[in-house]
């Protein structure tokens, strides 16, 4: 049986949910409807299943317009499996599957042989026969969903509508349901399913329709429809579409959305080395654009800075700071709003980083962590100590710890910037 949707419009409380849908599903085809939440997938299915009536447009089952069918006739042609059903009482599996025969039976009619055959067949197909007499309430989500699928198949429908049939199921049960549906379609059942999982859609549907803002954005073979551009437009998500090497169907990989750059308060240059900068870098990375120099690639500070995306001025390992690196470092410092000098052990190799700081005109934007402890970290015979003292005396700000540093910096640059992202405010 063929489903044809022609110019379907449906609005709820005045706001249009479906705005001119044209679709057709030929006999024996599986059409998957994908689309973001609120794109109208369920609404479309409910229009086709007769629960909702469209404001405009027509739905045909073969050549018959939907409203011309009585509820019972409709139930003989069309069955529905929903995402999740709560069943009122403690029915056994068989009793639930037998409900599928209701549209084919009179009020007082007993179960006929045909009924029994259909019930048995549906239970075989869905592999629920092993727990015929179990209570439906004792079953797992996947088993339950197979029972509801069995009930739908016992209806002996020509059209099967599935509304997110696999949403709450684990991957094994998802595939089981899809395999059964696929098998039935091959046997001539027309299947229309709304589904979240683009990969299941790509793997099991003959065609896919993307629903976007109440309209069909694209419809066709999965590989033609589930493109990076279409998915980006409908879902606002970056994906990479590849090929599944096993099934040869397309495979959609999500790319984690890049976190939007937080409002940065300013640029800071960090003088560190030997791991003294790690905590400082982590503490400041969310609020400042950071640069680090001069460090060598073997330094743990280098790796932390690289991980946090800081700008790096580097020098080869175990080599003294070259003039070129020195100049680059100084230029970076000059273009920064502030400089932080960490509790770095200073030796002949990195003393030039301190000298560079002294070349800065504005000493008041230099922060020195624990300047009083410099003598213990001074491996230059007192030169580093002298430079630190010089810096502090000429206006550099001594700080007693990373937390205090962060607080002070944020307060200072926050004021300067005026309005600032709320989450950056010191707590």
């Amino acid at each position, binding site marked *: 049986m063929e489903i044809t949707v022609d110019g379907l419009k449906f609005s709820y409380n005045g706001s249009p949910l479906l705005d001119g849908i044209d679709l057709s599903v030929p006999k024996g085809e599986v059409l998957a409807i994908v689309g973001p939440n609120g794109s109208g997938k369920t609404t479309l299915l409910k229009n086709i299943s007769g629960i909702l009536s469209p404001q405009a447009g027509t739905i045909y089952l073969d050549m018959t317009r939907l409203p011309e069918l009585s509820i019972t006739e409709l139930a003989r042609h069309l*069955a529905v499996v929903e995402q999740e*059903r709560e069943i*009122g009482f*403690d029915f*056994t599996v068989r009793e639930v599957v037998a409900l599928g025969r209701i*549209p084919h039976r009179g*009020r007082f009619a007993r179960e006929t042989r045909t009924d029994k055959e259909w019930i048995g067949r549906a239970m075989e197909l869905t592999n629920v026969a092993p727990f015929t*007499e179990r*209570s439906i309430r004792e079953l797992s989500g996947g088993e339950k969903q197979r029972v509801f699928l069995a009930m739908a198949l016992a209806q002996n429908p020509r059209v099967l509508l599935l509304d997110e049939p696999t949403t709450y199921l684990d991957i094994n049960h998802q595939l089981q349901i899809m395999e059964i549906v696929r098998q039935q379609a091959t046997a001539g059942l027309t299947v229309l399913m709304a589904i979240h999982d683009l990969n299941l859609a790509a793997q099991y549907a003959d065609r896919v329709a993307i629903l976007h803002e109440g309209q069909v954005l694209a419809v066709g073979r999965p590989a033609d429809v589930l493109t990076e551009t279409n998915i980006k437009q409908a879902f606002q998500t970056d994906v990479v579409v590849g090929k599944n090497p096993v099934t040869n169907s397309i495979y959609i990989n999500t790319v984690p959305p890049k976190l939007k750059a937080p409002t940065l308060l300013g640029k800071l240059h960090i003088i560190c080395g030997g791991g003294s900068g790690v905590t400082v870098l982590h503490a400041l990375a969310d609020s400042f654009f950071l640069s680090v120099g001069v460090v060598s690639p073997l330094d743990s500070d280098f790796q932390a800075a690289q991980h946090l995306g800081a700008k790096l001025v580097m020098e080869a390992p175990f080599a003294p700071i070259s003039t070129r690196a020195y100049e680059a470092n100084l230029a970076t410092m000059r273009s920064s709003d502030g400089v932080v000098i960490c509790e770095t052990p200073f030796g002949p190799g990195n003393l030039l980083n301190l000298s560079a700081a002294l070349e800065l005109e504005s000493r008041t934007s230099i922060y020195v962590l624990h300047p009083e402890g410099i003598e213990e970290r001074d491996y230059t015979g007192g030169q580093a100590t002298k430079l630190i003292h010089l810096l502090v005396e000429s206006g550099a700000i001594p700080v007693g710890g990373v937390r205090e540093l962060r607080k002070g910096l944020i307060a200072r640059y926050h004021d300067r910037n005026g309005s600032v992202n709320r989450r950056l405010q010191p707590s």
Partner: protein
Amino acid sequence: MNRNRTYSRRLVFAVLLVLTVPTLLAGVAVGPVHIPISDTLSYLIGRGVSVDNFSSVSRLIISQIRLPRVLLGLLVGCALAISGGTMQGLFRNPLASPYVLGIASGASTGASLVILLNLRGALFLPLGAFIGGLLAAGIVYRLAQERSKKTSVYTLILAGVAVGALFSAVTSFTIFLYSGSEKITDVIFWTMGGLGRANWAYLHILTPIVALGSIILIAFSRDLNALSMGEEGAFHLGINPETSKRIMLGVATLLTSSAVAFAGTIGFVGLIIPHIMRLIIGPDHRFLLPTTAIAGAIFLVWADMAARTVASPAEMPVGIITAFLGAPFFLYLLKKKGARM
């Protein structure tokens, strides 16, 4: 645990059918005046059989008091149980019953008003009760459905309690207004519930109502099964949920109200009987409703026998007995199922 449902269904149904016979005999035999079973049997089987010691007093007691009373008990028990089972199915909840949903109170108010307004005519009483019951059912149903499409169980029960209380207040108020009137004992009877006023005229009205109503409900039992999949689920099975619900709610209300019209408010029969039967034979309403109807009939006759004998020769309202049995059971249900439903 459900392995032998088909087997147990038939067995339970057969046992219950067989049990109605001793129930009928016992119901006629038990009472302040001792009437031997043999007398009862000979009255029931062959009226013409001449037995010397079968006095005319015995005959009178059987034909005018005991038999109508037992038959009324069977009819009322059947009506209350089957409408309780239907409502539990309709609301997908084992806590629903004509009593909990305020329908019995509404019917009681309607019946009281008919008596106090002195409306004569045999049909006025069930009619008044029916209007009162329907009014209560309509209000409760509306209230429970207003909030969301899904009928909320808590709203349903709260609305039922509140509407029931409101109608009880109306009944009490009319009692207060007419406290001088001799009609007042009649009205008080309604609030207690009992089979003591049974007579053949009642049976002539009640029998067709209960028979027809029960047949309609049983005819709709597959709709109830479909509705346990939810309203949309029922629709997909070819059942128009609104039509089915209206018909079943209407018929269940009619049955409850007619029972209340002739026997007052007898609580808990409509709650415990369907539930016990569901535990035994499962929730398939095509079997549950007929079984529940017979079980309810038997239960009420035995409860009435207890009411007649416990304080003999004085007579207790049977509502007290059913409440004694039913209220603890209801609390048990509420504790066990309340959270899950």
